[in-house]
């Protein structure tokens, strides 16, 4: 089964690494979703709601467009 990637890229994995190697579970707890959802967002398999996207940006203290980028098309 092929993976369907969204057109939203993100830097969550890098930002987690720079945030004292924060785990997906820790991030999930801070934004109120499950670890599997954080994993799906990171892997580009799920585009979060605006509310969750803003919460993620807030956790890392970054503007939204430094965390998420919209790309025209993915191969």
């Amino acid at each position: 089964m092929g993976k369907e990637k969204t057109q939203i890229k993100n830097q969550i994995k890098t930002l987690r690494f720079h945030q004292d190697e924060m785990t997906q579970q820790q991030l999930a707890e801070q934004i109120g979703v499950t670890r599997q959802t954080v994993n799906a967002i990171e892997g580009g398999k799920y585009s979060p709601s605006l509310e969750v996207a803003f919460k993620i940006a807030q956790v890392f203290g970054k503007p939204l467009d430094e965390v998420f980028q919209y790309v025209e098309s993915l191969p």
Partner: protein
Amino acid sequence: MNTSFEEKSVWVQLVSLMVIFGGYFAVAGFMMADGVPVLIAYVPLFTVSIVLLVIMLTAGHIIAVCFGKPEGRDERDRLIEWRADSVSSHVLGGGVLIAITGMIFEINNVWIAHFLFLLMFLSEVLKLTMQLVYYRRGM
């Protein structure tokens, strides 16, 4: 393991439905082929199936809890369920129209009732399957 409790729950529901109501339709199919003409004759079989389904669902969820506590549902779980519901509702809607057509041509109630029940079963199986596809493949 990268499977949430919600996804495990969907697996439990899918397997339980397939096993229990797969069995129901196999037995009911033989009864209909033998010409059992009244709906009430199928009630004991249906009742046993419902009881077995509840037991299997309960046991399945208890086992799922043993492999990881429920994290609660979040926006992704809800969106996945809505999308899967949207797909499966087409099967149900289309089938109801066929059933109504069958009633117009005065097909036996036993066949109409089982056709409607089969539709409910198939649309639920489709919904659960689509949920698993969305969980694995992404949306």
